[in-house]
């Protein structure tokens, strides 16, 4: 029994999960874009 469990643990791998990967990369790109935009909007403006 314990040998079977050990073998199952050895070959165990999370299947799929691409939705989590895309969510993480989506958050990254959205965060970088929004922060870059906030820096652009706050940029020092030259006085005329």
């Amino acid at each position, binding site marked *: 029994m314990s040998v079977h469990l050990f073998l199952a643990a050895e070959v*165990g*791998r*999370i*299947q*799929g*999960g*691409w939705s*989590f*990967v895309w*969510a*993480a*990369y989506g*958050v*990254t790109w959205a*965060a*970088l874009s929004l*922060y*870059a935009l906030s*820096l*652009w909007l*706050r*940029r*020092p403006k030259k006085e005329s």
Partner: protein
Amino acid sequence: MLKKALIALTLLAIGLVVWAAWLGLAWAPPDREMGDVQRIMYVHVPAMEMSLLAMTLNFICCVAYLFRPRWSTDSLAEAFAEVGLFFGTYGLVLGSIWGKPTWNTYWTWDPRLTAMAIGLVSYAGYLALRRFVDDAERRAVWSAVVGIIIAVDVPIIYLSVRWWRSLHQVQSSPATVDPAMVHALRWNFVAFFVVFIVFVMARYAIARARREQEMTPPPLVLEAAR
């Protein structure tokens, strides 16, 4: 000159982020146990590294300001604090997304996660303090002191996984990781480091401009001085 350098670095950063994302999403092999979910590592780890780097540099600026007060040091400390808070916040969100399929939970009061959360709240407080104090010199001194105190959390965040062996894994070493994964992770580190430089430069320019605006006497005073 600075504007041109910022534009060139921004274009370089965009190119590197695209290249690094391709490496992480398509080129690197899936992990033996975590499968494709492990690809989150290529964005989560660099975000956290940039956050810890920014917090460390903020600490150095705070110490430097107390020894030799200069507006450039104070402005740089402000830039590092905000950029560190930014990278740390979204890095923590990425960790939470990664936690669901691997730990079966978005959040747990693991020592590493808790120490990071405390760090982020502390840096948010540091930035809030800078907003509330009107006097520029007092603000710089007070925030330098606060910056030094809250930096105590930085080594705790880094070493928490070694001190308290819990759910969060210990830092990996290139010796124990597939070379293809190390290659992809290093390119992601380079990409996010260039993004980090761009953000710090842009945020420093904002802080410096505000400081100069504060130091410039209003037009009426200038008129009276003539």
